[in-house]
């Protein structure tokens, strides 16, 4: 494979985008040949230090390589309120579809509570036949389901496209309020059925056990459809910063509604008009009016590599890698352009492609060393196409802060430096 010349590779779009077969078939062979050569060629006197003595002992809970210690969330906290703020997943340092638990993005309104699971209970009350308490031991006996799905703060990507001039930051800081995990828990519908929902009810109010007692209204239809009371995240019990011991998980909906540290669900006839759903998570339009209850996260994609901070070291073959997701369902396709949007090629989607999950896409690219702009554009199974920044700003202005899903353009200069650009 490594002997193939540029003319053998099938171009699918302008400026060096190559057919995805190159990655589907050729990648493993190239890697295999390379590592075998290294092993057989190494003379004994060059033994690295980690082969000259036994390594560290076994451990009860794993850690990562010290060489990866720099891969961290970026934190922005409110002044005078350390526990209120957010931390961004370093997307540019990660691969695949699953976010490691310690790097899952955070957004808290009054810090992370350390909840004793033996003292934690969920109350379901309001327009139900019976007001019921559930403790964690009881919940562990209910039928559980596991789903790989993303969660995204509705303020994600705001910094990437809505400031007047492009902010030059890492991909993770511009788009890292999204993470994807396998969530395991009890379908909320089972508990609501047990409590017996009044046919006149249309909403629930969900409340957390943090110091903010953060709460949101959720349409009853969503609560009965695919809402999950999540207990596990990627196989282990939830992290405290993800709602230990119990969180609501609403697939595809803006992250703020998936109440962490879930303590209370009140079944109601109308939305409670909480502070979060009125004064915060609403979208101000140019005419001064605001959208309220804009729940689903729209189709979005971003190229994570190359991206700002990752420098291309000279012309040659590179892998474009990125992630795509949609609150409406599966990703149908992702198109990539390496010539500023003049031509587009279809990227390879990494299996599995799941409902409301992050989908990894990849594409081979031979960079010729010239300045250019690369972009990705996702389409979901409903046919929704990720819009351009220009189209969004024309329709909604720049005064809103939530649900921005514009196409991300990365400018690449002749030195191989990558920057956020508006294109």
């Amino acid at each position, binding site marked *: 494979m490594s002997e193939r010349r540029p003319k053998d590779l099938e171009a699918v779009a302008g400026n060096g985008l190559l057919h995805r077969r190159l990655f589907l078939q050729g990648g493993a062979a190239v890697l295999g040949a390379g590592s075998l050569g290294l092993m057989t060629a190494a003379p004994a006197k060059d033994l690295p230090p980690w082969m000259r003595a036994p390594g560290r002992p076994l451990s009860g809970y794993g850690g990562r390589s010290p060489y990866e210690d720099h891969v961290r969330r970026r934190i922005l906290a409110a002044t005078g309120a350390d526990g209120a703020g957010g931390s961004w997943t370093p997307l540019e340092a990660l691969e695949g579809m699953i976010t490691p638990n310690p790097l899952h993005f955070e957004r808290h309104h009054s810090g992370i509570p350390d909840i004793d699971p033996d003292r934690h209970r969920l*109350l379901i009350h309001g327009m139900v036949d019976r007001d019921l308490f559930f*403790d964690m031991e009881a919940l562990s006996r209910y039928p559980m389901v596991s789903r790989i799905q993303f969660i995204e703060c509705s303020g994600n990507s705001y910094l990437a496209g809505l400031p007047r001039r492009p902010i030059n930051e890492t991909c993770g800081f511009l788009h890292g309020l999204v993470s994807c995990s396998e969530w395991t828990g009890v*379908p909320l519908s*089972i508990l609501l059925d047990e409590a017996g929902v009044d046919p006149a009810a249309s909403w629930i109010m969900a409340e957390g056990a943090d110091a903010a007692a953060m709460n949101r209204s959720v349409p009853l239809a969503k609560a009965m459809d695919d809402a999950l009371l999540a207990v596990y995240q990627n196989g282990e019990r939830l992290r405290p910063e993800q709602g230990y011991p119990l969180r609501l998980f609403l697939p595809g909906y803006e992250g703020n509604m998936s109440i962490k540290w879930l303590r209370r669900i009140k079944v109601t006839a109308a939305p409670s008009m909480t502070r979060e759903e009125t004064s915060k998570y609403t979208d101000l339009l140019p005419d001064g009016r605001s959208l*309220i209850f*804009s729940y689903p996260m729209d189709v979005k994609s971003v190229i994570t590599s190359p991206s700002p901070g990752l420098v291309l070291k000279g012309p040659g073959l590179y892998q474009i890698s990125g992630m795509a997701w949609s609150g409406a369902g599966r990703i149908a396709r992702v198109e990539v352009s390496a010539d500023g949007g003049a031509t587009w090629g279809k990227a390879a989607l990494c299996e599995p492609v799941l409902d409301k999950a992050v989908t990894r896409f990849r594409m081979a690219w031979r960079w010729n060393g010239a300045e250019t702009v690369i972009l990705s554009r996702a389409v979901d199974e409903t046919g929704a196409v990720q819009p351009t920044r220009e189209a969004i700003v024309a329709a909604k202005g720049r005064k809103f802060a939530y649900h921005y899903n514009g196409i991300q353009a990365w400018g690449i200069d002749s030195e191989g430096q990558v920057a956020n650009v508006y294109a």
Partner: protein
Amino acid sequence: MRSLTAVAVAALAAVVLAQEGPELGVEATPEQVSEWEISIEPDGEGLPPGSGTALEGEPVYTLYCFSCHGTEGQGLLNDVLVGGHGTLDGPAPLKTVGSFWPYATTVFDYVRRTMPYQEPQSLSDDQVYALTAYLLFLNGIVGEDEAMNARTLPEVRMPNRDNFILAWPPPEEQSGE
């Protein structure tokens, strides 16, 4: 707008998920529920007995709120609470309690459940009514000695009340509601 296939898939998913639980919920007494129930609905449901005016709220504000929100709600370390009227359709919109919040009941609910930041749910209901009255007064919405209580607060008409467009349910499902 959903296709028939999507509807069929959704129905199938619902059937798959319709599982039975072991029915381990423990009935809560009305006393327990009322101890846990802190939310205030926009029609005033849940508002407790008690009362407070802006005059009574000013010293409470000075004690608990001004270090983060400024001496008169103009913002300091955290959110601006006062002003911004008429700015929402301009180039520099300022969203405050007065210029943006659609329901006065939400002010009581939020102050009681979340504030003061270092010691939430520590204020008396009278103090929360008084603080709510003070914030509404600073925004020119109620008078200085107008008492806020379970009867008067839901009647307060917030200036931005009618400027919200429902994005849910989807427009095609909103007809007839």
